[in-house]
């Protein structure tokens, strides 16, 4: 554990904190100022992330901020774009239909599976009206 602690790049933590935080602040301003619903914000973020990933721009943010760029939903979009371009380079046309989900399979499956488990174990509670 000590070896791990001494290997940590603490500067990276700060960059992840600031960039991740700023991405959330942009969304917060959109929520407060434009009355966009959270669902629309999430759709906007994933789409923008995919486009920036496709243009090859987002990877610079990932290189700079690590999880500060990959953990927000724009990073999920970037992951889709990255998977798709890698798969197209390997398999051509078919890759456009395979790469996206392939690259993000872990996250999607985890969310669905854990969500299902959570619904099984949770007690149904009365909705507050």
């Amino acid at each position, binding site marked *: 554990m000590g070896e791990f602690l001494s290997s940590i790049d603490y500067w990276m933590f700060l960059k992840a904190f600031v960039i991740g935080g700023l991405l959330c602040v942009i969304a917060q301003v959109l929520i407060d100022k434009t009355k966009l619903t959270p669902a629309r914000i999430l759709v906007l973020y994933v789409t923008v992330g995919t486009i920036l990933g496709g243009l090859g721009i987002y990877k610079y943010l990932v290189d700079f901020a690590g999880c500060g760029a990959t953990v927000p939903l724009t990073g999920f979009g970037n992951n889709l774009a990255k998977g798709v371009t890698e798969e197209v380079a390997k398999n051509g046309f078919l890759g456009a239909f395979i790469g996206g989900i392939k690259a993000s399979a872990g*996250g999607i499956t985890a969310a669905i599976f854990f969500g299902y488990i959570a619904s099984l174990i949770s007690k149904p509670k009365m909705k507050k009206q």
Partner: protein
Amino acid sequence: MESINTNKEYQKYVDKKSPNSPIFKDCFNAFWVGGLICVIGQIIYDYFIFRGFPQDLTSTIVSISLIFISAFLTAINVFNKIGKFAGAGSLIPITGFANSIISPAMEYKSEGYVMGVGAKMFTVAGPVLVYGISTSVIVGLVYLLFNTQAIMLV
């Protein structure tokens, strides 16, 4: 400070003061909670890289770990409290995507396991996947046409 004598003046004063302060507080909370979630992701990432896992696998591990934490906190009704406090700070990280699946799954249990849990899970995540995946297909087709990252064409 100018004195406030009538109700009307008071209302004006409130209007002048109130719109600014909540957004500043909202943004501050969103900033540090969102940043903190990313740092937790970075700690998990660094740990598995240190253990010798390949980079792309480690990214998946980070996503799954954060989604698990989010699922757990949603199941014990803590995530909603964090969400109320942090707003976009817990919405924008992958935790918010996970919560958008898990929360309706729990809430609509009473409507049955197929059309309740199974269908309502995707109320928010469905659109996200539709637009994300559709955009990624277009990205793939454009990449196929030019066989280069589009940025090189500009």
